[in-house]
């Protein structure tokens, strides 16, 4: 796969090593550095898109990096490397959701199995479950726009590029997502304010 039989994670940009990694060299010094620079954000983005499942988020991140590496040759620099890569992450997360939905459908006909929420993460698991459920109630596009813009800090333009949608579409989905979350989680903001004033 690497073309030279060497492990890309061990490769750096030397004169000899440039060829197999030349595409990625536009945006990152080498593949381990590429992974290192994006690992945390990738896991966090996947975690949020999947509604709080640590193991699944790490799987999604691994798969996204693998896909990115394999697809590097097709990267045409029409978008930034980050836009291109996070698009892969978002798709991988959705792919995982679908798999999970299909598996659930085949494993238990009508029984509603709640999606995994990692109980070992610091914080209130009940609140996290509620938030995850509220995010699950959003349409896929609403969920993605909300997570990318409000939780991950991407701009509307960047998000539109990542999702391959028009800026106006992203804005309207974002607006609807916030409306819906505001209605579903009205007490959460108040609770946050109370906690802060108490401390």
């Amino acid at each position, binding site marked *: 796969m690497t073309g030279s039989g060497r492990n890309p994670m*061990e490769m750096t940009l030397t004169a000899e090593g440039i060829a197999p990694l030349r595409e990625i060299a536009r945006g990152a010094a080498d593949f381990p550095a590429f992974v290192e620079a994006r690992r945390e954000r990738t896991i966090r983005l996947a975690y949020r898109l999947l509604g709080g499942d*640590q193991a699944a988020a790490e799987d999604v991140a691994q798969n996204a990096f*693998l*896909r990115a590496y394999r697809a590097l040759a097709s990267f045409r620099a029409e978008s930034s490397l980050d836009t291109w890569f996070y698009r892969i992450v978002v798709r991988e997360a959705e792919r995982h959701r*679908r798999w999970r*939905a299909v598996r659930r459908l085949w494993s238990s006909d009508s029984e509603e199995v709640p999606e995994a929420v990692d109980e070992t993460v610091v914080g209130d698991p009940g609140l996290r479950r509620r938030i995850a459920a509220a995010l699950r109630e959003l349409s896929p596009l609403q969920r993605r726009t909300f997570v990318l813009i409000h939780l991950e800090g991407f701009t509307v333009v960047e998000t539109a590029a990542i999702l391959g949608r028009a800026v106006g579409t992203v804005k309207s989905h974002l607006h609807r997502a916030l409306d819906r979350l505001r209605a579903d*989680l009205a007490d959460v*903001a108040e609770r946050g*304010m109370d906690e802060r004033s108490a401390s």
Partner: protein
Amino acid sequence: MLEPEDERLIEEISRSLRPRAMDGMRARAFQMHLSERLEKGEGPSRAGAFAVALAAAAAWTLWFTNPPSSVPMPTVVAEQHAPAVPEGGERPPVYALVERPLIDEIDAPEVAAEDYLPDDYLVLAAMFVEGDAGW
């Protein structure tokens, strides 16, 4: 511009929905695992992809031979209550049973088609999963 209540809500969601921080050891394990998979030339979900594609094809064939009564077949003209499978034996086109947005989402122009090989299951899934709110 966000209202202060919206900002608090977003902050609260962001605070609650944060994965475990990766310490050095876990980060190294992540890197090593990725390294091993790259070295093996393993693709995402390559393992079992053939089996999945085979199972999907078998299930698809079975479904078309004997469609479950709970899945509505599209009608040509609603008022005429046209049968799902016309008497002539002509079946509705496959794409008519698949949600259009799902097809659009599968399309990944920047990623080589072979990267998304096991997509058959998506089409299959689209036939069984109603709506996409839960996805």
